C-alpha cells in the first residue's frame, strides 16, 4: 500500500541525506521523494511516498519524528488530498503515427513541449493514476526516456490532517 507522508524540515545541508539514510538503515521502502523550498527560507518540504502497511507507516512517522531537523510531519493516509506528479516523456514518433499520438496526448490533457525528427517530448501533470495511464498508453509507440518528480500533495480544505509535532 502506498502512503503519502509530508515532512517540514530545516533547510540545511545534510537533512535530505539524513532522511534518506534513515529510510535505508531501517529498510523502509520509498516509492518517491520530492523536496523543495517553501515560502519560509528556513524550511523545506519533503513529500515521501512510502510502500508498506499501517504498522510500517507508523514506524516511518515515529523515526522521522526522531530526526531533530524534521520539524513537522503530516501523514496523509486516509486523508483526501490533491496529489500531483510531473513527468517529461520522450516518445518515439514516426511521422505516420504522429496524428494519433497527438490526439492521445490531447485526451490526457498533456502538452507537447519539444518536437524532434522522430521523437516528441511531452509534459504531463496529474495524480499518479493519470501519469501511469499515459505511460501505458504511450508504451506501444515506444518510450525513449522519461523523468518524473514523484508525488507532491496537499490536504483538501474540507478535511483536517493529523499532524505530528515532536
Amino acid at each position: 500500500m502506498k502512503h503519502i507522508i509530508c515532512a517540514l524540515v530545516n533547510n540545511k545541508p545534510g537533512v535530505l541525506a539524513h532522511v534518506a539514510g534513515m529510510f535505508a538503515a531501517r529498510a523502509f521502502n520509498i516509492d518517491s521523494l520530492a523536496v523543495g523550498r517553501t515560502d519560509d527560507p528556513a524550511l523545506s518540504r519533503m513529500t515521501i511516498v512510502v510502500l508498506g502497511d499501517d504498522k510500517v507507516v507508523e514506524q516511518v512517522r515515529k523515526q522521522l519524528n526522531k530526526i531533530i531537523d524534521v520539524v513537522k510531519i503530516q501523514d496523509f493516509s486516509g486523508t483526501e488530498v490533491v496529489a500531483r506528479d510531473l513527468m517529461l516523456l520522450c516518445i518515439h514518433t514516426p511521422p505516420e503515427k504522429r496524428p494519433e499520438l497527438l490526439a492521445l496526448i490531447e485526451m490526457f490533457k498533456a502538452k507537447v513541449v519539444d518536437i524532434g525528427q522522430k521523437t516528441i517530448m511531452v509534459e504531463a501533470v496529474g495524480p499518479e493514476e493519470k501519469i501511469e495511464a499515459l505511460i501505458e498508453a504511450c508504451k506501444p509507440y515506444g518510450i525513449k526516456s522519461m523523468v518524473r518528480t514523484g508525488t507532491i500533495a496537499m490536504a483538501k480544505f474540507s478535511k483536517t490532517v493529523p499532524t505530528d509535532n515532536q
Partner: protein
Amino acid sequence: MSKKSAQDGRPQSPEDFPLKTGAEIVVDTLIEQGVDTMFGYLGGVVLPLFDKLYDAPINFIIPRHEQGGCHMADGYARATGKVGVIIATSGPGACNLITGIANAMMDSVPMVALTGQVRTDLIGNDAFQEADTTGITRPITKHNMIVKDVKDLQPAIRQAFYIAKTGRPGPVLIDIPVDVSLAKCRETPLTEISLPGYKLQQAGHSRQIKIAASAINKSEKPVLYVGGGVITGNASDELRKFAKKANLPVTMTLMSLGAYDQTQAESLDMLGMHGSAYANYAVQESDLLIAVGARFDDRVTGKLKTFAPNAKIIHIDIDPSSISKNVHVDIPVVGDAKFILAELTKEIEYRERKEWFDKIADWKSKYPFKYDTTSANIKPQYVIEQIWEATKNNAIIVTGVGQHQMWTAQFYKQTKPRHFITSGGLGTMGFGLPAAIGAQVACPDALVIDIDGDSSFNMTMNELCTAVQYELPIKVCILNNGYMGMVRQWQELFYGKRYSKSSLRNPEFAAVAEAFGAVGITVDKKNDVKTAIAKMLAEKRPCLVDFKVEREENVWPMVPTGKSLHEMDGLSIFESMS
C-alpha cells in the same frame, strides 16, 4: 573568562561580551555547560582547541586510542548520568570514534563528541586528514552538526548538550573546521533552547496512566519488565515504591541490572537469551507485562510471534518510536519513567497474588543459575562469585562482551543503579577496560572492577597505560580461557565444534600489566582465587589478575536464535548437577 554583566540594570549590549576565538568559545561554553572532565586526543586541526585547554580548569584524560577515549567518556557518563565529552582530530581521529559513538547511541548514553575538521575552503577536496565526519556519523548520532561560521559555534555547543542529555539521551557530534576555531566573534547570552523539531514529553497522559493502573490492579500474573531507561531516568526509587506497593515480580534486562535490588525476593534477575529460567517462564506465563524503559530487544524476546503469548502489554517509555516497534503494545504511556511511575503508584493497589508467587518460587528453586562446583579447574562463575562475596554492594562492575559478561550478569547480584556498566546494544568487545577507566575518573573514591574476557581485553589493553598515567586504581579481572568464548560456544553448539579462528595466542597478561606500570597477578589454581582477589583489593595501584579458567565452559540457560523464550537449552544440565 567571565562575562561582564550589566551592572546598572541596562540590557546587555554586544560589547559586554568580549571578542573571542572559536577555540576560546568552545572551552568557555563547555565550562558553562558544567563540564569538569574531558577525554580526548590531539591532532593537527584541534591544536587551537588544545591550546585553550592547556590551562583550562578541566580534568583532561588522554587515551592511547580515540576509541578508548570514547569508551572512557561513555563509562564516565554511565557512572554519573552526566554528559561524557570526547574530543578528537579530523580524519583518522574522528573515524576512530565511530565504534564508541555507535555504542553510546545503541545504549542511549549522553555524550558530546567534538571533532576537528579541515579548513572550510578545503572541505570536499580530499584534504590531508579529511573525512566526511558528519556524513559518516549521521546514522549513529542522535544529532550532528558541522559549524562553518564561528557565530554558530556557541549555540551549536549549547544545543548539543541539551540534545545529548534530554529525552532519550544519545551522542551528539559537532564537527569544527580549524579556521572556525581560529576565527573571532562575540559570545552570546545563554537563552532558553528552542528546537522546533525536538519536543520533550515528561508527564504521561493521565488517562493512559489510569488505564494502566486499572489493568495492573486486575492482573493475576503480572511481571514488571525493567529496562535501561529506568537507570537513565534516575527512577530506581520510584520503581521500588511502585513494585512494592503493587506487589510485582521484577525482571531486568542486561542494561538495567541494579535498577532493582536483586537480593529482594521478588527479583527474577535477568531475562532473555541468557537470562534466568524463572524470569523467562514468568514472562511467558504472565497475563500482564509492564515494560518500563525497555525496548523489547531481540536478546530479550526470543521468537516474537510466541513472546508473552497470554499477556497484555503496558509500555512506559520516553521514546515513542520504541512503542509497538517489535511487539504490539496494548497500553502505551509516553513520557519520563520517573514521573509516570510516581503517578502510577498513586493509583495502584496491593494484591497478594499468592498462587503466582508460589509458582515463581517453585521455578526459582528448580532452576537457579548453576555451574559445576566440584570441578578442580577454576570455573569462571566461581571467580565471579568470589569477587561478589568480597565486594558486594561496594563496587562498580564493568565488563567486556561475551561469556564473561553473561556470567557476570548472572552471578554478580546488583543492588544499586549505575554500578553495572556494560555494552548491551552494540556488544562492543574492548569496552571494559576504557569504560572502567571512565567510571574511575568519574568516581575517584569508588572501587571499580573490570571483569573481562581475554579476547575482549586484547582489543583495548593499551589503555592500561592510561590508568597508570593518571593513577587510577582500577582492578581488572581477566577470565582467561584462551578463546573468544561466546563464539566458541556457538561453534560448539551449532557448527559441530569447528573452532574456526576463535582462539588467540595471548601474552602473559600479568607481565603486560607490570610492563605498563600496573600490578600483575596470575592465578592458575582454584585455591589461589580468594587470596588473589584479596591481594587485588588491597592494592592501591591499578591491578590486573589473570585467572586461567576452564577453557570450554558454556553459558546456560540459552534461548537459541529463532526459539521462544521458554524453549531454553541447558536446563537439563542444571538437573544433573548437584
